[in-house]
């Protein structure tokens, strides 16, 4: 591990899919770290590669997936070199996953207690009785009321929100080091969403787990994450702490995402989404993939991919706008508002915030 505090290090990951139309380059040089105990949010539009990234970490890729390069290190162990047997020893034990749709992710014919107990029996070799006792404790922890009586119920006897609590219990039961939550609330009603997020936040303080939290809804990120990575067209284009991404974003794509975020004033109105569509990953563009949709596009964007420019020790963005030679642009009004708030928060001038880049 490059850093003592890291639990997971993804470096230059490349994943392609073989399709009839050709090779889809879904993940193009993704690198990020996950620190012990932190929650990292990965945000980005649909198709940006969030799910493929996490599936690759779990070692559960589609049959037509091909890892074209890079490395994924978990506690100094290279996951990409592990056999399937070694990997399944980690799955559900060291690295667990919370799925998106609770209506379909539980086995309809197995009692829920047994489903929660299963990872205990697989990884800790517990007998059924001990495992069921632990499962019961877990179900109580995630807020299943009257858990003793309900442990022998089947999934269809629970509501969506309750089922997602059960899925969370399954993920947590072996005290994993890493939890991957891929849009864990997208399939739920808004009110239930909030409850599940509250539960996750509450559990986060009780157990010391790192979380990769995937969403395309920036609205839920602020309350959940410590750091944010923004993905576009198979690349991470900006990452930083929650404050840095929310109040001082540098990449025009992040500006677009933030502007299309629902706020109190825009509630009910149609949201401005970023115009245009993501590039075809069968044949990704040579330069910055966001260039065709970028209102602040520079000539160099179409020629060369921007490297990461350092904004602070924790904040990096891959946009040519941060290059010394680039013309100075004023971000959209909403973003300037955010920067003002941030300046006040930090007790510095707006200028200093805007010129944060090197």
């Amino acid at each position, binding site marked *: 591990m490059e850093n003592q505090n890291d639990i997971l290090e993804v470096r230059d990951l490349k994943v392609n899919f073989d399709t009839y139309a050709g090779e889809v380059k879904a993940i193009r040089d993704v690198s990020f770290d996950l620190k012990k105990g932190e929650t990292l949010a990965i945000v980005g539009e649909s198709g940006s590669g969030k799910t493929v990234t996490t599936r690759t970490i779990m070692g559960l890729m589609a049959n037509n997936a091909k890892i074209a390069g890079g490395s994924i290190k978990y506690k100094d162990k290279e996951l990409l070199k592990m056999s399937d047997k070694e990997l*399944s020893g980690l799955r559900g034990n060291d690295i667990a996953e919370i799925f998106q749709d609770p209506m379909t992710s*539980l*086995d*309809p014919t*197995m009692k829920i207690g047994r489903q929660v107990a*299963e990872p205990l029996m*697989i*990884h800790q070799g517990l007998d059924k009785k001990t495992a069921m006792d632990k499962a019961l404790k877990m179900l109580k922890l995630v807020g299943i009321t009257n858990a003793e009586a309900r442990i022998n119920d089947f999934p269809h006897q629970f509501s969506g929100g309750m089922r997602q609590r059960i899925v969370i219990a399954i993920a947590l039961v072996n005290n994993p080091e890493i939890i991957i939550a891929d849009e864990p609330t997208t399939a739920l009603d808004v009110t239930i969403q909030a409850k599940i997020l509250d539960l996750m936040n509450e559990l986060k303080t009780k157990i010391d787990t790192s979380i990769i939290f995937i969403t395309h809804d920036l609205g839920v990120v602020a309350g959940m994450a410590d750091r944010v990575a923004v993905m576009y067209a198979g690349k991470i284009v900006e990452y930083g702490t929650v404050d840095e991404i929310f109040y001082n974003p540098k990449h025009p794509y992040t500006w677009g995402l933030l502007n299309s975020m629902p706020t109190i004033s825009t509630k009910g109105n149609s949201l401005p989404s970023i115009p245009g569509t993501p590039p075809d990953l069968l044949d990704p563009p040579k330069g910055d993939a966001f260039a065709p949709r970028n209102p602040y596009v520079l000539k160099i964007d179409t020629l060369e991919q921007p490297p990461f420019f350092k904004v602070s020790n924790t904040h990096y963005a891959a946009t040519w706008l941060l290059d010394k030679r680039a013309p100075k642009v004023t971000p959209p009004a909403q973003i300037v508002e955010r920067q003002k708030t941030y300046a006040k928060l930090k007790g510095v001038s707006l200028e200093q915030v805007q010129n944060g880049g090197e």
Partner: protein
Amino acid sequence: MVKYLSKRVFYLVLTLFIVTTITFFMMKLMPGTPLTNQEKLSPSEIHTIYQQYGLDKPVWQQYLNYLGGAVTGNFGTSFQFSDQPVSYLIFSRIGASLQLGIQAMIIGVLAGIVVGAIGAIKRNTWVDTTTTIISILGVSVPSFVLAVLLQNWFGLQLRWFPIAEWGGINYTVLPTLALAALPFAETARFMRTEMIDVLNSDYIELAKAKGLHQTGIIYHHALRNSLIPIITIVGPLAVNIMTGSMVVENIFSIPGIGEQFVKSILTNDYPTIMGLTIMYSFMLCVVLLLTDIVYGIIDPRIRITGKKD
């Protein structure tokens, strides 16, 4: 459960009543009489025979008489074997047919489940292709063709099994295989599709994320979920076996009700045809009732609510 069962039994009786009524009047509408080919009989002799069997009475009275008899298990006397009540004819022959049918059902469904599951697990490999071809053959070759082929190969040429005789278990092997082919093929196809669906489902993905191995996933999650829907095709398969048995029993000269049914039709033996039709309907109703009950017991989704969500 008791309420549900009594409701189902009521429907069973209702179905049998309707079947009885329809068969009765269809028989009346059929051209020809049992005496059609008996030109040597004089009109008065015919009249006497009609009287003997009650055929001179008005149709509605014949119908009521028949219904009354049917309730007590009396289906009249066979026209063909005038000394034999139809009920005796059925019960002396039904054992052989039941044995064949049940054997064929069990062997066909079990083999189909195994082959279908293997096809799904190894999908898109040569194993899958082979099992698919076998099941397509099983569906498309009619049971009487298969019966004749089996009789020829294993009976006449290899002499492994007796042909056209009835005795111990040895005598049942070839006809059972002939009858089992279709249930086997249908089950294999159905099982393969179900299991592929299940293997692609989110809960299997979650099972993998829990760290279960392939065998654990199949054994603990995939099999049970793909087996449950198999119960729904047992009813239709029973129909297949019943119709198949009529021909197969004839080919292997098995003294069962299928063979009798064909004979009765050829001789316009109305009481026997009707008795057997009601018997077949009864067996089918029982199979459907049993499969529904079993489905309710093993599928937790309908166990409580009574219907699937």
